[in-house]
Structure formats: C-alpha cells, structure tokens
C-alpha cells in the first residue's frame, strides 16, 4: 500500500493517454455487463428450471396443440404428482409495441406448480371465482401502472373470439411476484375455461403440459412412460425436463452464448492491445526514472510490482466504472425490457467473472513492460539518460 501514491502518480503522468485508456477499458466492461445480461436473459431459464418439473409438448413442434383430455391421463401415470397446462395467447395491450406473454391456464394448479411465485391467497381465490379474471406479474403491473380491479383490454393476434372480435377483456384480480431477482414476472395469466369457450377455433386443446414428478420417482422413466402412453396417437408427445425445454426454446434464437463470447473476445483482445501499448509507452518513456528507483535500492521485483500495479490500477478503474455503470443501466432497463427480455439481469456470477477479467487484463497488459522494467540494467539505462 505504501507504493500506492507512487503508482497512482505514475499512472496519471500523461492524463489524456491514461483517460483514453481507461475509457477503452470502461467501454469493454460496459459491453461485457450488457451482453452478459442479454445472454442471461436468453439462457437464464435453464438455471431457474426445476429438476423435478417435466414439460410435455407435441412431438413434432411446440406450435402444435395437445388435447386437453391428456391432462387426466398424464395425472394417472405412475410417478406424476401434479400436472397443469399452459397455452400461448400472443396478444398485445392497446398498441402492437406493447407485447408481453399471456397464458390461459387454471388458477390453483398453476401456482401449485410454481411455489417460487408469491400471490396473496385472497387474490388467487378472487381470480378462481371470476371467469374473466386475470393475474399479472409485478414487473408488468409496474411497467403499465396497473392495479387490482383494472379492466384490461388485450388484442389477440391469433385467437379471435367466436363472435369474430379480437378484443379480449379481463379484470385484474391479482398481482404475483417473485423474490428471486433472476425470475421475471412480466407476463399475464387468465382463465383457460373462459379462453376455451370464447375462442373461435381450437377448442379442447392446450399448448403444453407441465408436471411435477413425485418424490423418489425417476424423471426419465416418467417422461418415457408419458411418451409411450401417447405413442401412435394423433398427437404424440415429447417429454423433457424443464431445463432441456428451456434450452431448446433458447436455441430457436441462435447460440446466444457463443455470439456473446465471440463479441466479448474481440473487444477484450482489442482492449489488451490498447492498454498493453499504453503501458509499453509509459515504461519506454521513463527508463531513466526506473533506473533511478533501482539505484535507490528498489529491487527488480519491486519495480516489476510497481509497473504491474499501474496496469492493474488503470484496468480496475475502467473495469469498475464499466461494470458499475453497466449494472445501473441494466437495473434501469430491466423493467422497460421485462416484456421482451424477461430476466434481463446482471447475475453475481457475471460480476465475479468481470473482476477476474479485470485481473487477467491488467496482468496481461502490464506483464511484458513490467518484465522489461525488471530486467533493466541500471548502468545501461543511466548511461542512455
């Protein structure tokens, strides 16, 4: 610590150059935090998946519906504790840009399946008693300023009503939330019985089933038993764990993790060139000064440490600013993007990775100039001066 003042003053010897270098580090780490949040938004569902939950979809495609009659047959299969269904509604609120997911389902089975969601019991009961009732996630309610009792018009893009209208109206009976910062609640649930009765086509079908495996039962065996049950039927099934389902859903958008890694790789490679060049220049300019330090009794290792610390300091200032401001931006944007990118969030693991990257970038940028300073011959350097 006693060298900190010396390191700090040396780092700011050329203020413009150091500022520009810090700016490039800042941009790199800002990008890192934003891209990490985007990556997490696309892949986070896999982390949140419950190993004991299975998802049953139509064998050919998730788009193809399954008969509602499968519900009881799935529930009767050995190892299944409980089952519920969901369907994709695909509507918007007031304007097409206000899109968010809506799902028709059954009130009690849904919240029994997702105990990580919190909804007051009286609100759940109110929803179960109102056929046109709906519950909305807190993220969504905050975004649009909705409150209990509001009448909510949703324009359907797929499901026209039997009377030819695309305007569906719901009463907000409840607002649910989650304490898990990784989980999004930017979606809406409404009653399946109302949906099924009112829609113009597709009666008696659902989008997919989600079930919980009984304690001690083997999820793989249960999945096999379900698919076997519906083999050679008009709607064969494909059952997978919730994590596998989330993964296959994410893959529809492309390999986000790979894209993010490639972009960040290019950014950090450029960053190393920029900050490495800064440190090399800095050491080249003050060879006589480094020789003086050695003359005064600073050991080769001390000189190595001083130069390396300068590189680390520049990387840490830029990196901490980038991560910090990135975190603030993500926090600010999370509610705005909740409907499009649920789970847009900077996880602690990304922050830790960011700090590790700062250390690696600082060491790599500074190690060669620092080694040069360490190996410096006092006599040669002073005679050059």
């Amino acid at each position, binding site marked *: 610590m006693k060298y900190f003042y010396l390191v700090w003053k040396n780092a700011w010897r050329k203020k413009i150059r150091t500022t520009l270098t810090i700016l490039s580090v800042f941009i790199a780490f800002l990008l890192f935090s934003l891209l990490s949040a985007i990556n997490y938004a696309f892949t986070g569902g896999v982390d949140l998946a419950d190993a004991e939950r299975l998802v049953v979809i139509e064998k050919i495609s998730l788009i193809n519906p399954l008969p509602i009659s499968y519900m009881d047959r799935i529930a009767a299969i050995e190892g299944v504790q409980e089952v519920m269904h969901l369907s994709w509604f695909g509507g918007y609120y007031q304007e097409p840009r206000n899109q968010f997911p809506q799902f028709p389902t059954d009130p009690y089975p849904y919240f029994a399946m997702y105990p990580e969601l919190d909804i007051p019991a009286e609100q759940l009961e109110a929803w179960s008693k109102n056929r046109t009732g709906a519950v909305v996630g807190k993220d969504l309610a905050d975004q649009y300023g909705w409150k209990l009792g509001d009448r909510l018009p949703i324009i359907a893009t797929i499901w026209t009503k039997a009377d030819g209208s695309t305007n569906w109206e719901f009463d907000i009976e409840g607002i649910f939330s989650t304490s898990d910062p990784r989980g999004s609640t930017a979606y809406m649930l409404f009653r399946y019985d109302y949906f099924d009765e009112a829609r113009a086509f597709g009666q008696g079908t659902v989008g997919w089933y989600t079930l919980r495996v009984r304690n001690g039962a083997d999820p793989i065996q249960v999945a096999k038993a379900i698919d076997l049950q519906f083999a050679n039927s008009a709607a064969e099934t494909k059952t997978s764990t919730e994590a596998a389902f989330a993964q296959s859903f994410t893959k529809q958008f492309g390999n986000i993790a790979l894209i993010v890694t490639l972009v960040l790789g290019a950014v950090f490679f450029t960053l190393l060139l920029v900050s490495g060049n800064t440190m090399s220049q800095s050491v080249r300019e003050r060879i006589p000064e480094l020789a*003086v330090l050695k003359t005064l009794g*600073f*050991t080769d290792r001390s000189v190595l440490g001083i130069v390396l610390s300068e590189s680390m300091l520049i990387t840490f200032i830029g990196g901490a600013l980038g991560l910090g401001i990135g975190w603030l931006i993500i926090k600010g944007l999370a509610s705005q993007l909740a409907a499009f990118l649920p789970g847009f969030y900077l996880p602690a693991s990304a922050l830790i990775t960011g700090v590790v990257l700062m250390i690696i970038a600082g060491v790599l940028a500074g190690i060669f100039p620092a080694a040069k300073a360490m190996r410096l011959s*006092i*006599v040669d350097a002073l005679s050059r001066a």
Partner: protein
Amino acid sequence: MTETLARLENVSRTYTRGKDKVEVLHNLNLSIPKSDFIAIMGPSGSGKTTLLNLLGGLDKPTSGSVTVGDAQLSSMSNSQLSRWRSTNVGFIFQFYNLLPVLSAQKNVELPLLLTRFGSAERARRASIALDIVGLSDRAKHYPRELSGGQEQRVAIARAIVSDPSLLLCDEPTGDLDRESADDILKLLQTLNREHNKTIIMVTHDAQAAEYANRTLHCDKGTLETRVAA
C-alpha cells in the same frame, strides 16, 4: 590511524562492445578513508563513472574485489546489492534524476519507502533532509517548478535522507551555472565536514575538485592521487 570505508583490490572491469572487449579499469587498487571527500577527474572514457558504479554496487568488477564497510559488493547478488544501496549509499547525478510526477517532498521520501517507517515518520525525515539543503519552503513544488540548483539540492536531500555513510556524486555541478555550482559544492563540503559523510565526486571541473580533500586522476583505467592545496 584513519579508518577505511571502501577498498578496491586488483579491480578490473571489461565491457564487451560488439566483438571487441574494452578494459575500462585495469588492476585498480584504492583505499578510501571514512569521512573523506575525494574528487575524481579525468578525460571522458577514462573509467571515472565505472569506478563510481562499482563503489555504489551498481556494477560488478570483471575481476578483483570491492569492499565498502563490511560488505563485499563483488560477491553480492543483485537483490542483496539493492538492499545494501538503500541504506548505505546515496547517489547524486548530473541531471538530478528527480521523478517529475512527485513533489520535492515526495521525491525525498522515495528511499524511505524501502524502510519500515510509517508515512508520518517518512514525511518528518524528508522535511529534515530538505531543511539541511535549505529547501524547506519548496517541499510542495514539483521539479518543473524548481531551478537547476534547487533540483540538485532536492536530489542531495534524497541522497542523505536515509543517512548513508557514502555519497557518490556523478558530475553534480555539470548542468549548473558557476554560482549554483558553488552553492552545491559548499553544501557537499558541509555534509562532509559537519555530517561526516564520505563523498566521492566525479567531475570535469577543476574548480569543483578544489572543494575536495584530494583529487584522483583517472586515465586509461589507472589512478593517480593529488592532495588538495
């Protein structure tokens, strides 16, 4: 009998320049008493600075031995030499070699970073050193805000702050006007007479050499002694 501070025995130093070998010092023997003030003169390339570097542990002889106090410098490792230099020897250069990013006070404190002193004690000792060289009022000034003579005084304060017994000066007045040079030389003389510092000064300036107790003439790697009048 005067106690010896530094001794060079049969010291030779040869440098390799491309394919050629250049012998800068040849079989040199020298004994330097404690509290002496010696000027070393001689033409360029005669080995003056090399001699200073050997005495300061910045360089090692090709053959022979260099002993300063109890330390045999020629057999010490680089890190041992670094530690030895930090407490036993102070260096004063022709171009002052202050760190431009540090104030006079912080420049003087630099050698004390290698000690166990806390920041308050480092500051106190640096203030005393600046007081000795008469620059207390310039402690917060940066090198660019000081005259050449003042910069050299700061460099001298830096050299004495850790209280070494030996001061090695390489052309300390070479970049100064006559008046500033005389001030610096008087300061060195005071350090020698009142603080018992042993001073070895390389110079081209015969007037500067007159401030020393004796002058050694270096030529073609050998020494010849002349006692000051």
